[in-house]
């Protein structure tokens, strides 16, 4: 994608976020849309890793949950202001991602999948087990988010905050992709050895993106904790990590807007299946298989390719 199409896409996204509430009949819609946008920001970050750098992570829900629990624990048990808690948890996740990322990003393909999956599962089990700190399997409640005496309250307020964050995240990731780091990333995806030959420090580039994507997840975990008012260890479950990867792949790898689309579609899916909850797993599984077979590039890039072909003929 060129810089210009990025700018168009970003404007379109802002317009959609601004106009969407016109079609919301009640507060519940704001709530669902906010959840979708929180997931979307995580996916925009994860897409940098999966779509651009070509590295898989089956453990990103772990970073999300660490951010959520960091905010929950630091505000309620240690009395830190929410913004400081958010920053402190993000810093902790940066350290963790940096320390773990250095050795495990040397792995490729399936072994990297195994290592990241392991990190996610270990985080999940720790959150479930250390109940003196985390409340155990029942989870813990989180205070509302307030900064400088101003409290973000209600579904509408959260919608606008998360809408702003989503636009910001997409803008940041588009800038990153158009920067030298972005070009290095794409080179790593194409061929790591060739990238090295061209003088790119592939290890550092991959680590940078891994850490950035972990920070996106951690920050949004904190936002989610305050918005939801409650966190449980299942935020870190293997299933959640899979869901995040599926959102990225479904929407279209190597497209920030695709990641947003994937996140929105999969968050809305259970709403459409209301009354058919028993079939949710079957539908999700079928979507995952079907997308990969029929639209291997994901929804957005496939639609774009189709449109381009139409225009030409």
């Amino acid at each position, binding site marked *: 994608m060129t810089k210009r199409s990025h700018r168009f896409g970003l404007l379109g996204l802002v317009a959609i976020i601004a106009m969407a509430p016109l079609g919301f009949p009640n507060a519940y819609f704001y709530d669902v849309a906010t959840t979708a946008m929180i997931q979307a920001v995580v996916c925009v970050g994860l897409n940098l890793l999966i779509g651009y750098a070509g590295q898989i992570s089956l453990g990103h829900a772990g970073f999300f949950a660490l951010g959520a629990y960091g905010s929950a624990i630091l505000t309620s048990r240690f009395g830190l202001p929410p913004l400081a808690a958010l920053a402190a948890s993000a810093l902790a996740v940066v350290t963790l991602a940096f320390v773990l990322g250095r050795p495990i990003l040397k792995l490729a393909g399936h072994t990297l999948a195994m290592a990241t*999956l*392991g990190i996610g599962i270990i985080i999940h089990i720790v959150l479930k087990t250390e109940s003196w700190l985390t409340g155990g399997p029942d989870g813990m409640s989180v205070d509302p988010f307030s900064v400088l005496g101003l409290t973000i309250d209600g579904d509408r307020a959260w919608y606008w905050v998360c809408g702003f964050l989503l636009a910001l995240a997409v803008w940041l990731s588009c800038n990153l992709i158009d920067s030298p780091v972005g070009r290095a990333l794409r080179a790593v995806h194409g061929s790591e050895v060739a990238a090295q030959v061209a003088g790119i420090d592939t290890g550092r580039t991959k680590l940078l993106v891994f850490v950035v994507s972990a920070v996106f997840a951690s920050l949004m975990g904190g936002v989610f904790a305050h918005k939801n008012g409650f966190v449980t260890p299942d935020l870190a479950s293997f299933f959640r990590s899979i869901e995040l990867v599926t959102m990225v792949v479904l929407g279209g790898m190597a497209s920030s807007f695709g990641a947003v689309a994937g996140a929105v579609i999969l968050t809305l899916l259970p709403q459409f299946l209301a009354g058919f909850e028993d079939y949710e797993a079957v539908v999700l599984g079928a979507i995952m298989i079907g997308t990969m077979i029929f639209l291997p590039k994901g929804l957005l890039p496939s639609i774009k390719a189709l449109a381009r072909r139409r225009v030409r003929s």
Partner: protein
Amino acid sequence: MAAQLLQLVFSGLTSGAIYALAGLGFAIIYNASNVINFAQGEFIMIGGMAAATLVAAGMPLPLAALVAVAGTMLVGMVLEKLAVEPAREAGTMAIIIITIGASILLRGLAQLAWGKGFHTLPAFSGERPLAVAGATLMPQSLWVLGVVVAVIVALWWFFSRTLFGKAMLATSYNRLAAELVGIGSRRVLLAAFALSALLGAVGGVVVTPITFANTDAGIMLGLKGFAAAVLGGLGSGLGAIVGGLIVGLVEALAAGTLSSAYKDAIAFVIILVVLIFMPQGLFGKKAVDRV
């Protein structure tokens, strides 16, 4: 203390044997196609659940086990035909998503068919524990170990003594060369899925009297089988067996002496440590990146 330790070793070997079977399932499919089949755990679940349902419906155990294993093999082959085969040329990431999708789909279908409750099988030869050097050993554990050893011997025979087994091995060494001498790599892949499903289902049937089975049982078993396969070195049969036993033993010892809450985390801690220091696993070949 010694008796306690022996007790933990028994339980570790029993679960390790199941991880080894699952790990072998991963290795066989990986060798045939470089695919990691994340639905491997669901084969274990389907085998166990199907056998339990059939026995509960009045079918004699040996027949129920046979039907359950055959049914699971069919599921494996359908999975290969409908989901993996059409995406053969797609990348690693696509195949990972497809097999994870397949595992979610199979679990969803199993939940529709069997509900969320636990099912169980009667122990094959009674519940009277045997006393061994102060520790107790359930007869079903002997069944698990015996069946797993028998399966491994049969696999060894299949891969080293039969033409088709050798053809599968040849494909794993070099697919193009194997195709050039007339080995159909599609048939090999189909057979690999059938064989892996068989290994999973057999494991599921023999372990269900000990652990019980519900539709979620396959997730952890599958992931630990994957850990076993990676620990031993992806694609190495011996590696998967040794990896499975190591995971089972360390897990049981750690759960018994340190903390039982972290039992499920142990396998992943081991695998992280091993991957950081020995990225190829214990018996893996050094991979060479072709540019």
